[in-house]
């Protein structure tokens, strides 16, 4: 009896650090349940995992086919484009693996199942993020790693310590930026439940755009993904540093190292949007 009371006390304590730990714990528990659920249909799991891998692989095959007809795209060679592709794919894949089901939020609002999550003693963001957790999404990460490996073999990089350090930093920063976009898109669905597809424009659309060199796109589009939805920090700017290429929009050299900062800032904004969205749901019930 005393133990139960204690446990409820602990769960109720509202320290921010406690919330994060609680959230991660709930995330782990729910994600584990989803993994077990998918294993109930093994054939389908194998097929979807393979499908995920094949889908992304064919995506790259399309680029290979393009380069079977041309030597460069926007002045970038196949190896360099492969580098962009790999970085974009891994960053996006990690974010997609972690919280890729945020687009189901609108459906949960519509059918009322969101309420069943609200009566659980766990932070909502963690519960929604872990919803439909799917290991098959590792397919994209794997494929991204393979393409990145290929790129690093083919491209002649003048490696320095800074460049080596930048590689993992940009992958994690990039995943953070994409994750923030996922969360913001989720928050938007509290307001417009049917608009989940808008998120695809920024997530899948953003990832596709980042697979190609910035020199291909119109300047306004490049400005948009640098200053409005700062996806350029995922791979374009750091990759320009690694490849010793001129930066788009004449940006200063240090921006290549900004991805973690940009990720934190985006995360904070997305977090605020999420809180506002949840508050509006709890005040309107729709």
């Amino acid at each position, binding site marked *: 009896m005393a133990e139960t009371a204690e446990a409820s006390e602990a769960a109720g304590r509202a320290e921010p650090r406690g919330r994060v730990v609680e959230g991660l714990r709930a995330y782990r528990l729910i994600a584990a349940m989803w993994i077990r659920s998918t294993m109930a*249909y093994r*054939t*389908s*799991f*194998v*097929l*979807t995992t*393979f*499908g*995920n891998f*094949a*889908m992304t692989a*064919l*995506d790259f*095959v*399309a680029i290979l*086919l*393009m380069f*079977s*007809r*041309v*030597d*460069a*795209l*926007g002045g970038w060679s196949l190896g360099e484009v492969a580098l962009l592709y790999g970085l974009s794919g891994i960053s996006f894949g990690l974010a997609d693996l972690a919280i890729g089901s945020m687009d189901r939020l609108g459906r949960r609002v519509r059918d009322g199942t969101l309420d069943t999550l609200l009566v659980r003693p766990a932070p909502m963001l963690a519960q929604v993020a872990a919803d439909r957790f799917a290991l098959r999404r590792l397919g994209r990460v794997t494929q991204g790693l393979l393409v990145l490996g290929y790129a690093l073999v083919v491209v002649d990089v003048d490696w320095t310590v800074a460049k080596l350090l930048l590689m993992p930093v940009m992958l994690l920063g990039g995943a953070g930026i994409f994750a923030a976009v996922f969360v913001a898109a989720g928050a938007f669905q509290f307001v*417009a*439940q*049917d*608009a*989940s*597809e*808008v998120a*695809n*424009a920024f997530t899948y*659309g953003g990832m*596709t*755009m980042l697979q*190609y060199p910035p*020199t*291909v*796109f*119109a300047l306004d*589009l490049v400005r948009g993904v640098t200053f409005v939805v700062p996806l350029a920090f995922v791979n374009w700017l750091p990759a320009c540093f690694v490849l010793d290429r001129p930066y788009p929009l004449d940006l200063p050299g240090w921006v290549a190292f900004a991805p973690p900062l940009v990720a934190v800032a985006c995360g904070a904004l997305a977090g605020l949007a999420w809180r506002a969205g949840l508050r509006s749901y709890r005040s309107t019930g729709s």
Partner: protein
Amino acid sequence: MGVGSGRLYAAVAAGGFRRYATYRVATAAGVFTNTVFGLILVYTYLALWDERPQLGGYDQAQAVTFVWLGQALLAALAIGGGGFEDELMERIRTGDIAVDLYRPADLQLWWLAADAGRAVFQLLGRGVVPFAFGSLFFPVALPREVSTWAAFLVAVGLGALVSFALRYLVALSAFWLMDGTGMLHMAWIAGLFCSGMLLPLNVFPGALGEVVRALPWSSLLQAPADVLLGEAAPLGTFVFQAAWAVALLAVGRLVQSAATRRVVVQGG
């Protein structure tokens, strides 16, 4: 089948149309997303054709048109999924399909009618705006003759039929696989890659190009596009599409009767 059942399927089709028409916000969201994807693709194609003018026999304007055509037809022809197949699979999974089998209507025709209604709505609701946007802001190659536009619409209709036949087969796989998500994913991939959505099929090199152009998925995007761009003779294209449609629909019927026997044996 008399006039009465014709009326029934028309009503089902109208229902399919209306059902999608109610989701205005979702439609607007889809239009936005198609437009953004069109923008991204169109710049990569412009760069590609800058590098190699006349690549695959298209000039730059034709390539740009192909991009926006793809975005316009993506939802209507359910190239990346998103039609009736999720629902049909869910009904098979939950066993509700047994109810459908007792309806005085043909299962395949019923879903075909519903999907046709959806396709027409999505062609209008989701296709027109991105295509108009692309035509306004980028150099496109559009025919002047009404007859070409008419032939294009016929090719789109036949493409929708092939698309339905393919997805119907995929959905029926749920009778044997408890969870058909995996099949669904594989079908989307095949659809996106082999229809020309990722890259026009005429850009594919050598034997690979020959093969993908002979597969049914080329009926979805490549065939209507080539008719509109004046790169393919309409009649030959129609014959190709119709042959695939008839073959796939027939296979669908065979699979359907096998599946129905299965349901009867299991007692629903």
